[in-house]
C-alpha cells in the first residue's frame, strides 16, 4: 500500500490516566457506554492539537463493545428483557457511528475486526479510500471487562498466552492523509495473511521483508502483539517520542492464525 501521512495522533489509556474522561460531556459520561466515551475522548484530544478535521472514519476493534453485549444478554437471560440501548451499543460499529454523530464526520464509516491484526488491517482499509475521503480518522479501540478476565485463561493455550499476558484497554487515534506531507511520519501495513505452516514470527519476518526490504529489525512478537491494541500503542509511542528511524510492528492473531506488519517511518 502507498504509505499514509500521520497528521495527528492521541491516545486514551485509562490504566495510566484516571482522569481520561474529564473532557467527555457530562451527559455522555453518565449515560453512554464506557467504550463510546473512550472513543469520544481520544478523538477530541487529537482534534485539539490538529488543524484539520476528518472526513471519514475507520475503526479497528477485535471485540467491539463487549460490555454492552454482555449487559444485553444478561437482561435477556436474567429478566427476559434486553435493553434496546444495550443492543444498539453492542454492534461492532457503534463507536464509529457515535463518532460520526458527535463530530459530524459524514464520509465512509468502516469498522475492521481482525483481532491483534486490526490496526494493520484498518491501515490497509484506509489506504483503499478515495482522495476525497481524506483525512481519515483511524481509531483503534478495545475495552476490558471483568468477564473476559474470567474467561480468557480457559481459551486455548496459544490464545491465552497472547491475550492474557497484558490485557489492556485503550483508544488510540491516528489522523491520516494520503498525500506525503513534509515532517509528518509515514505509515503503511501489510496483512493480515494466514501463516500456514510457518511460525508467527517467521510469517511476520516475511511480511516485514516484503514491506520494507531487508535490514530493519522486527521486534519480538511478544513485545508488540500481547494485546489487541498494543501494535497501535507502539506506533503511537514512536510518533510521540519523535525519534527518527524506521520501525516495524508485527502482530499475530491466534484466533485467525494470521499475521500482519505495520511500518512506520519517522
Amino acid at each position, binding site marked *: 500500500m502507498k504509505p499514509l501521512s500521520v497528521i495527528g495522533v492521541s491516545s486514551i489509556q485509562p490504566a495510566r490516566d484516571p482522569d481520561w474522561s474529564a473532557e467527555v460531556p457530562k451527559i455522555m459520561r453518565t449515560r453512554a457506554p464506557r467504550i463510546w466515551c473512550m472513543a469520544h475522548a481520544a478523538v477530541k484530544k487529537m482534534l485539539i492539537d490538529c488543524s484539520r478535521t476528518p472526513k471519514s472514519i475507520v475503526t479497528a476493534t477485535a471485540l467491539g463493545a463487549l460490555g454492552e453485549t454482555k449487559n444485553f444478554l444478561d437482561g435477556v437471560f436474567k429478566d427476559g428483557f434486553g435493553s434496546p440501548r444495550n*443492543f444498539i451499543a453492542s454492534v461492532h460499529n457503534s463507536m464509529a457511528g457515535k463518532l460520526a454523530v458527535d463530530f459530524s464526520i*459524514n464520509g465512509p464509516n468502516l469498522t475492521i475486526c481482525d483481532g491483534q491484526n486490526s490496526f494493520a488491517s484498518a491501515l490497509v482499509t484506509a489506504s483503499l479510500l478515495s482522495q476525497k475521503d481524506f483525512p481519515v480518522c483511524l481509531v483503534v479501540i478495545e475495552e476490558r471487562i471483568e468477564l473476559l478476565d474470567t474467561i480468557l485463561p480457559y481459551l486455548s493455550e496459544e490464545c491465552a498466552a497472547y491475550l492474557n499476558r497484558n490485557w489492556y484497554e485503550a483508544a488510540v487515534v491516528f489522523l491520516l492523509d494520503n498525500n506525503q506531507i513534509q515532517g509528518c511520519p509515514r505509515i503503511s501495513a501489510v496483512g493480515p495473511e494466514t501463516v500456514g505452516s510457518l511460525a508467527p514470527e517467521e510469517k511476520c519476518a516475511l511480511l516485514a521483508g516484503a514491506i520494507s526490504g531487508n535490514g530493519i529489525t522486527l521486534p519480538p512478537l511478544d513485545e508488540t502483539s500481547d494485546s489487541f491494541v498494543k501494535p497501535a500503542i507502539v506506533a503511537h509511542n514512536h510518533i510521540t517520542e519523535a525519534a527518527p528511524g524506521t520501525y516495524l510492528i508485527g502482530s499475530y492473531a491466534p484466533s485467525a492464525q494470521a499475521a500482519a506488519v505495520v511500518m512506520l517511518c519517522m
Partner: protein
Amino acid sequence: MSRIPIIGMGAVSAAGHCASKGYDAVVAGKDCLTPLSLFDAALKAVPLCGQVPDDPEPGYSSGGPNRCAGLALRAIREALQPMPERNGLRLGMALATTVAGMTRSEQFYRALRDDPGYLEHAARELACHEPTAIAGFLARQINAQGFHSISTACSTSLHALGMAKRLIEHDRYDLCLAVGVDALSILTVRGFASLMLLDFSGCKPFDARRVGISLGEGAGALLLASAKAARQSGIEPVAAVAGWGASADGHHMTAPHPDGEGAVRATTAALEEADIAASAIDMIAAHGTGTPDNDIAEIRAMRTLFDPLPPFCSMKRTLGHTLAASGILETVFAIHALHDNRIPATAGFEQPDEAINAQPSPGEEKIIHHFIKNSFGFGGNNASVVISKWEWSKQ
C-alpha cells in the same frame, strides 16, 4: 477507478442452497419465511424468519466451527466453482459479518450463567467468536493468502464488496472474494424485538401496513478478478462492479436521516465512481427492510437522485433481513435478474403507501444494463454499489 469483473457467485439463504435456486424464489416474489424454529427466542409470539433449511449436501458446509462459518463456506465453494485451479493467482477475501461466532458464544454464556463450572468449555465454545476467526478459518479452507474482516451492521457486505473492488484495483490480489454472512441468533432476534422493529407476521416492504422487519440468515459470495486474471482464466464474467459509495448520516444511532441525506451521498459516490448518469440506472435493488422510517427515507433519497424513479424491488420478504449478508446475497440475485432482464417482484407488498408515493415493481421484463444495490445500517451507515453488465470492449 475501473470496472472489476465478477467471475463467480454463490448464495445460501432461506430460498435454497445455491444462487440459481434462490433466484427462482426471488424473481417470483415467493415468501420463504417460516416460524423461527432454530432456537426458542422466548418472545410473546414466534416470529417469521428466513431460516436456511438443512443442507441437502452437508459435506459442502460441514466442518465449520459455527453456523456462520458453515454458511459462508457453502457460498464460497459455489462462487469458486468456475475456477477450481488458481494457477498461482493471488486470492484475497473481504469478509462481512456482524453475528460471527455469537450463535455459540451466547449459548456458552447462558450455560455459564447457570453453571460456573461450564468455564472449562470456554476454549471450545469461544475459539471462533471473533469475525477474524471465521475469516481465518475460511481463508485456510480455500488457501486464500489474506483477508480483511469488516462489521458495520446491515451495510457491511456492500462495504466488503467495495473493498474487494479496491483491493483488486490496488493490485493487492488477482482474485478477491467478497463474502457476506450472518446466522440467526438470540442476540439479534431479541435485539430487534427490544427495539420493537420486528413484524412477527412477516415484513411488508413499501406497503402501507408495514410495521417492521423479518430477520433472516444466509451467505453470499462474489468472486472478483482483475481483468487480466479474468481474461487468462477464460471465464466469461457474469457482471462488473462499477462503483462503490459509502457515507455516514451523522444523525442518529438507529433512525435514518428523514430525507435520506447520507443515502444520497453514498449512491451519488457510487454513480460517480461508475462514471454513469443516474438516468442509466435500470433497477434499484432496494434495502427495503419494511420498517416505517427506513422505507420512506430510502425512497425520498432515491427520488433526489432519480427522475423518474427506476423500477425498484425488495427481497426482504423472500429472504428475511440477513443483516451483514444482505448486501452481497441480494446482489447475487440481482445479477441473475440483470442476466434475465427481469425486475423481481417484491413479496409482501400489497397496499401502496401514500406517504411513499411509489410502488415496487410487480415483476416485469426490462432490459437491465446497470443497477444500484443499497444497504443502510445502524449508526447511520450507508453503502451503495453500481453493478453493470460486463463488456470486454469497455476495458
